[in-house]
């Protein structure tokens, strides 16, 4: 009997499959990777999704517009405030409701606080995924302050139900503004700590620089949006290109990086936190007086027609497409989930990387699984 050497073995015999997930700590929920491996190198990656599919789009067709408020934040539980506000703005666009300026400013403040919380979790989860546990705890500490702050006005910590058609539910007061200012000052101090802990860390640099490069063309082909797209050098942010709420009133920049690797996406997110703090500060300094809700009937009946409203969540451009047939119930409600497209690009960029790099790339794209599954 002759022994087979490694060269004799057919390539197809050498390949084997590995299931990563659906229950795995680094898959942010229930996401299932079916990997075809050659040794430690991924040859083909397939993402199996749908484990948390709850049918929000079908639910919308079976309830009146007001009853869909709580559903909106449950799609992306990490930036629930942004989804909740976006849904209200989409319906306002459909009905032609004018929102008071104070309410729009409050929406900006709460959305940006939520974005900071989401980016903190996204960055820290990414860092923890590649082995650094300490920064995660510091980030969690900062995020906790935002959750406490938002809890005082909304009553919930993640799945907010705060925006209403024509305004918001509760006004913010001086105590809220003072706490938010204290948080901003604290957060600016913390950037130095994060840079020391993460950005300059040699292990972190080796794990992220040049890993998982998404080029501009691939990003366009796969419909990538959000910080992932801006990390690939495309200067696109819905807040600038189609200002909603009252983003046109504020000065802020869109941070972009040309490299397109994990490090670029991480740096874009950190820079976005700084920009969000700037926006919150400006909004609180110029907060106008006035009512927080327009005079809107208890139950709205939009005219027949359709509308598309796009807004920027912490993960990319979200869109609500609503078709109305002139009744109290939406005829069709479609949600464009940014994570859906951002995840699909992984099947293109993963092949050729190690399994360990998959965790880094997946963390740097920062998707939320319930938002993909809807």
């Amino acid at each position, binding site marked *: 009997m002759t022994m087979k050497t490694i060269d004799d073995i057919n390539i197809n015999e050498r390949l084997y499959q590995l299931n990563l997930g659906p229950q795995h700590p680094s898959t942010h929920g229930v996401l299932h990777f079916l990997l075809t491996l050659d040794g430690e190198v991924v040859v083909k990656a397939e993402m199996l*999704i*749908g484990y948390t*599919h709850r*049918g929000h*789009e*079908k639910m919308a*067709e*079976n*309830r*009146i517009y007001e009853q869909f408020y709580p559903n909106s934040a449950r799609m992306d539980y990490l930036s629930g405030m942004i989804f909740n506000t976006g849904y209200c703005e989409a319906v306002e*666009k459909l009905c*032609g409701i004018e929102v008071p300026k104070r309410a729009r400013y409050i929406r900006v403040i709460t959305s940006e606080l939520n974005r900071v919380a989401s980016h903190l979790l996204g960055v820290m989860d990414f860092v923890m995924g590649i082995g650094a546990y300490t920064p995660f705890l510091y980030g969690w500490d900062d995020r906790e302050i935002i959750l406490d702050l938002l809890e005082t006005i909304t009553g919930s910590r993640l799945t907010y139900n705060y925006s209403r058609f024509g305004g918001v539910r509760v006004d913010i007061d001086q105590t809220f503004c003072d706490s938010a200012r204290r948080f901003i000052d604290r957060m600016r101090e913390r950037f130095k700590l994060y840079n020391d802990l993460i950005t300059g860390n040699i292990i972190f640099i080796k794990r992220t620089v040049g890993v998982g490069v998404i080029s501009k063309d691939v990003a*366009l*082909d*796969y*419909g990538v*949006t959000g910080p992932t797209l801006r990390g690939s050098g*495309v*200067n*696109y942010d819905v807040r600038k*290109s*189609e200002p909603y709420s009252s983003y046109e009133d504020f000065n802020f920049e869109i941070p972009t990086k040309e490299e397109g690797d994990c490090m670029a996406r991480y740096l874009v997110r950190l820079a976005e936190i700084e920009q969000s703090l700037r926006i919150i500060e400006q909004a609180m300094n110029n907060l106008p007086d006035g009512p927080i809700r327009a005079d809107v009937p208890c*139950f709205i009946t939009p005219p027949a*027609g*359709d*509308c*598309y*409203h*796009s807004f920027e969540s912490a993960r990319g*451009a979200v*869109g609500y*497409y609503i*078709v109305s047939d002139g*009744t*109290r*119930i939406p*005829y*069709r409600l*479609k949600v*464009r989930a940014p994570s*859906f*497209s951002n995840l*699909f690009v992984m099947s*293109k960029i993963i092949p050729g990387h190690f399994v360990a790099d998959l965790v880094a790339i997946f963390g740097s794209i920062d998707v939320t699984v319930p938002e993909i*599954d*809807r």
Partner: protein
Amino acid sequence: MLTEGQKKLLEELKNNLAKSVPEAKISQSDYVLTGYHLEFSSSKVGMRRVAKEMRSRRFNLETVTAVDFIDSFEIVYLYFNYNQDNIRVMVRIRVPKDEPPFTVSAVYSEAIWLEREVYDFFGIQFKEHPDLRRILNPDDADYFPLLKNFGKTTITGEIDDMLC
């Protein structure tokens, strides 16, 4: 308010789309009320020609979805561009229930998953799609949840009772 660049791009798009798909109806729409600048509607044809035109102008395919109008489907494509003159183009293609549309996944890879989702929820079998399988619903499901005859409730009556 439209800028000069947007107006110019809109005119160009209108002419080019009318040239490549002569049977379509193209009209400008009120962006403030609808969220899109240009509306393109046609029956059965034109989705691939529009996609190629949009790709050559570096437009991004935002979403693909469908609406069930009982007697026919309306397939909806939304395009948006990244550069300064932002234009959103809404493309509606009416297709009969027994005659599925062609895929645009050869032009935009993103459409592979987006069209899989449309198939998953409406049962629309896109022609020439490379990988048409269930995506969010279970693989062995025998239903298409977003069809209007699936899970129909009498909620309208209940709400009217509640409000009176």
